[in-house]
C-alpha cells in the first residue's frame, strides 16, 4: 500500500483516539453531572506539568501517571467542594465559575513554572516501520493506551455497581438519594474521576507539545465539540463524537490543508447544534 495513505490513515486513528481520551474527563463532568467545566483544559495542563516535573527530576516517565492522578485528584476534590457543589443544576453558573477557575490555574502555573515553554524528551523516540511507512513509536503506543483506557472505562461503567449507581443518579437524583445512594459523594467522586482523566490526558500529550500555561486552551474547544456531536452520557456517544470531530479534522487536513480541516469542524459543530442538539445517537 502507498506509505502516504498508510500514514495518513494512522494519523486519523491517532487523532480520534487521543481526542476521545482528552474529552473523556469532560464527558463525565459535563455529560453526567451537567457541569460545564471550562477549566477542563487547565486540568490537562496540570497533568502535563506533572510529566514535566517528573522528567526534570530524572524519574521514569511512567511516574508521571500516579503524580498527575494525585495532583489532579486533589485539585478536583478541592474545586468540587469549594466551587462546584453549590452550583449543581445551574449549568451556566458552573460555566462562569470554572472560567474564573481556568484563569486562576493558568496564573498559578505561570507563578510556579514561569511563562515560558518547556519541552519533554519523548519517552519512546524513533519510528516503527509497518506496511512500508514509518510511524513515531510513542504515537502508536498512545493509540493503544487510549483504546485500552476507553475499553476499560466502558466495561466498568456498564458492568460495575458504581456505574449503575451513577446511572441512577443521572437519571433521577432525588429518587436515587431516597433509595439510599450517597448522591453527594457519588457526584464528588465522578467530578474527581473527570479531573483525574484530564490529568492523564495531559501526561499523554506532554511529550508532544510545548508545556506552557496556555496549553489548556488548545483542548477545551475541541473536547466540547466532541460532546456536542456525540451527545451526553454514553461512551459510544463520546467515541462517535471524537470520531466525527477528530476524524473530519484529520481527513480534511490530509486531503486539503488544516485551514479547511478546522473550518469543516466548525461547520459540523454548528450543524449539530442546530439540527441534532442531543447528539449523533439521540432518538427524536
Amino acid at each position: 500500500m502507498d506509505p502516504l495513505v498508510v500514514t495518513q490513515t494512522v494519523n486519523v486513528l491517532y487523532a480520534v483516539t487521543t481526542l476521545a481520551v482528552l474529552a473523556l474527563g469532560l464527558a463525565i463532568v459535563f455529560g453526567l453531572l451537567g457541569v460545564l467545566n471550562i477549566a477542563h483544559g487547565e486540568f490537562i495542563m496540570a497533568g502535563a506539568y506533572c510529566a514535566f516535573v517528573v522528567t526534570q527530576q530524572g524519574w521514569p516517565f511512567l511516574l508521571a501517571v500516579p503524580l498527575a492522578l494525585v495532583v489532579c485528584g486533589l485539585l478536583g476534590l478541592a474545586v468540587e467542594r469549594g466551587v462546584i457543589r453549590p452550583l449543581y443544576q445551574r449549568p451556566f453558573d458552573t460555566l462562569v465559575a470554572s472560567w474564573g477557575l481556568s484563569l486562576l490555574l493558568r496564573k498559578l502555573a505561570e507563578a510556579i513554572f514561569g511563562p515560558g515553554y518547556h519541552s519533554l524528551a519523548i519517552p519512546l523516540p524513533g519510528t516503527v516501520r509497518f506496511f512500508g511507512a514509518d510511524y513515531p513509536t510513542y504515537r502508536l503506543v498512545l493509540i493503544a493506551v487510549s483504546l485500552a483506557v476507553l475499553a476499560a472505562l466502558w466495561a466498568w461503567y456498564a458492568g460495575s455497581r458504581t456505574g449503575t449507581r451513577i446511572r441512577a443518579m443521572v437519571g433521577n437524583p432525588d429518587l436515587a438519594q431516597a433509595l439510599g445512594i450517597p448522591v453527594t459523594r457519588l457526584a464528588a467522586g465522578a467530578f474527581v474521576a473527570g479531573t483525574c482523566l484530564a490529568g492523564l490526558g495531559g501526561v499523554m500529550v506532554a511529550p508532544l507539545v510545548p508545556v506552557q500555561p496556555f496549553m489548556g486552551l488548545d483542548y477545551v474547544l475541541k473536547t466540547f465539540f466532541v460532546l456536542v456531536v456525540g451527545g451526553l452520557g454514553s461512551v459510544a456517544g463520546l467515541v462517535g463524537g471524537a470520531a466525527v470531530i477528530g476524524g473530519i479534522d484529520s481527513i480534511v487536513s490530509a486531503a486539503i490543508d488544516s485551514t479547511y480541516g478546522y473550518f469543516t469542524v466548525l461547520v459540523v459543530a454548528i450543524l449539530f447544534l442546530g439540527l441534532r442538539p442531543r447528539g449523533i445517537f439521540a432518538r427524536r
Partner: protein
Amino acid sequence: MTKVSHLFTRRRMLGATVAGAAVGLAPGLMQAARAADEFKIGLFIALSGPASLFGPTQKACAELAVEGINKAGGILGRQVKLIPTDGGGPPAESAKSAVRLMLQDKVDLIIGSHDSATREALAATIKAKVPYIYTPVYEGGECGNNLYCLGETPEQQARLPIGWLARERKAKTYFIIGDDYVWPHKTNDQAKKYVAANGGTIAGEEYVPFGAPNKFEEAVTRIKSVKPDVVLITLVGADNVNFNRTFAGFGLDKEIARLAFLLEENTLAGIGAESSSNLFSCMGYFANNPSAANKTFKAAYTAKFGANAPQLSTIGADCYAGLNCAKALVDKAGSTDTKALMAASEGLGFDTASGHAAMHGRQVDKTMFLAGCKGTEFEVIETYDDVKSGTACKV
C-alpha cells in the same frame, strides 16, 4: 551683646524655620517640577496573552536601556520615564491604551514590540501625533508617517540564508509552511524570490489558521511524501514548537533542513534538544552571538537583574534598541517635531544589543546572524554585516 546675640538667635530661628519649611515642601515641589520635565515613553509589550512569555524580557531590556540613557543625561536633557502598556491583547485594546497614553499621560514618544495587527491598529490611532518606534521582526514595507521600524525584514532574514542553503547544502526544493496572516505571507513572497534566484523550486506551500489549536501530523506526512531539501517555516510560538516536534518525531529532521523565520531562545527551549537538529534561524540578535557589544550588554543585564533574569532573545533585545534609537533620534532632531524627526532619522546611528545599527529610509540596516541549533542553544555559523532592510520610506 546679649541683645544682639538674642537677635541673632531669633534671626537664626526664623531662618531655620523658613529653611525647614522649604525642605519640607521641597520633595513635592521637586517632584512636580520633575514630572513636568520627564520625557515620557509609552512602551507596548506583551503583558498578557500567549506572547506574554516575552513580557519580562521586554520590560527588563527596556529598563536597562533607560538606566543607561538617564545616566547619560536623559533625552533632550530630561529624565526618561517608561510607561509599560499591554500590547499582547486584541489590537483594539492596545489602540484604546494608546489614546490614554497620549491624552492622559501625555507621552512624548511610543515604542512598540508586538505583532503587525496591533501595529496597524496603533498607527491608525496615533496618526503620527507622537513618534512611534516599532521594534520587532516584521514583514517590511511599513512607511507610516512618523513611524520608525527597527526589526528584521524578510529581505534581511531570507536572502543570505537561502543563498547559504543553496550553496552549502545544495538545496533545490523548498516546502513552505506558515501561520495564515500577514507576516508569513509577505515573508514567503520574499523568500520565494530568493529561492528562484538560487535556482530552487517551491515543492509545496501551506498555511494553518492563526490562533487555532493546530496539529501537524497531516502536514508533516505530506512533507514526507514530497521530500523537499528544505522546509521554510513561518509558524510562530506554540505552532512553531508543535510543528518542529512533530517533524522530528516522524524522523524527518535527519534528511530535511529547516529554516525558521521566528525562532528565538524561548521557542527553541519548547522545541527541545532532540527535535532541533538541522534547524536554522537568521536573526539580528541571539543571546550567545559572539559580538563584543553583546558581551557588554549581557554583563550589564546580568549585573542588573541577576543570574535568573528572563531569557534574552531578539524579542526583548529589540526594546533595548528601541529606547537607544529614541534617544539618538530625538536628541539629533532637538525636538519631537515630526518633520525634524523624520529628517533626523536618515543616517541615524544608535547602539543595539549586538552592535551598531544605521537607519535609512526609516528602516534599519543591521548585522544579521545565521545560526544552527545545537541542542537548545544557537550556534552562530555566519555573521552578515550591514544587511540592507530592502524598504525605503520617505523622510
